[in-house]
């Protein structure tokens, strides 16, 4: 018995409109991605990607999304992701796009990458901050995330994500 191999695609939803955050939800995102795949790769592509395609993790606050699909068809999925142009929920459309951050074989590697990525983002914020108060705030969160990571691996991710938007 051989396990089915999957690919996990880590993306972030980028939008100009702050109201877009409230419509980042499981169903809307899945619909938008499926629509893009149908447009770009047709019925064949949709059928290939539909096998075990799910939204595994979704953080509406930071706009982080983890998609899963079969290893054979992840190229179809990745090539269709730039063609997602809007998210639709409750009969309202918000223009946005998906930025692919990482493609990994397990959720664990994606999580590790996300933590590392968010830490570098914090450092970049630290360089760009304008006043002292901001600097203090970012330094505090930077220290806190590096401390908690040694204690537990999984619990700090939410906290780590949250600090990015400060």
């Amino acid at each position, binding site marked *: 018995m051989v396990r089915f191999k999957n690919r996990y695609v880590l993306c972030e939803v980028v939008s100009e409109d702050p109201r877009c955050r409230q419509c980042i939800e499981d169903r809307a995102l899945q619909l938008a991605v499926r629509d893009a795949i*149908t447009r*770009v*790769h*047709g*019925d*064949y*592509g949709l059928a290939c990607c539909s096998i075990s395609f799910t939204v595994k993790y979704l953080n509406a606050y930071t706009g982080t999304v983890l998609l899963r699909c079969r290893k054979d068809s992840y190229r179809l999925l990745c*090539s269709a992701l730039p063609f997602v142009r809007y998210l639709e929920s409750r009969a309202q459309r918000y223009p946005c796009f998906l930025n692919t951050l990482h493609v990994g074989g397990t959720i664990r590697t994606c999580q590790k990458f996300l933590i590392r990525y968010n830490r570098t983002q914090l450092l970049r914020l630290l360089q760009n901050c304008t006043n002292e108060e901001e600097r203090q705030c970012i330094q505090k969160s930077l220290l806190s995330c590096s401390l908690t990571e040694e204690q537990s691996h999984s619990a700090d991710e939410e906290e780590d994500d949250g600090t990015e938007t400060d």
Partner: protein
Amino acid sequence: MQRQAQKFCALLKSVSCVSLANPGWDSTVSSVFVTWCQTAPSPGPRRVLRRAAEHHYLRVRLELPDGGARPNAAQFKQLVVTALRELHGEVGAALPVDVLTYEEKTLSAILRVISSGLVKLWSALTLLGFYQNRRCAFRVLQTSPFLLALSGNSRELVLD
């Protein structure tokens, strides 16, 4: 001539390590050179293709119910592109497919497609089911990487 001489010298050195300064060899070498020039292939790149063919050619026939509207060449191409778009999306519709010949009377055509898209085109043609809301079907009669191979079909030979 100059280039050929240089090439010849390099060849000699590589083959037998002959010292060209040896006086006794001079006449022999020059006569060999003359014969080499005559027998060697004419200068110019010799082209041998070992990769797969760039295009594939398909002879197809469209089957339509009797009495229906028959597509002209442009509509035929449109039909092929529609089939590709349905099954393979925009990526499929962007494949370079050419209709080389099309006979409206017999509804048969010869298509040319880039080799990497042969499977996509073939599957799209197979799964096409409707033309203007009427049933239709594509029959792929012959396929080959050489256009000349489509000039005759061994399955249509009449044996006495």
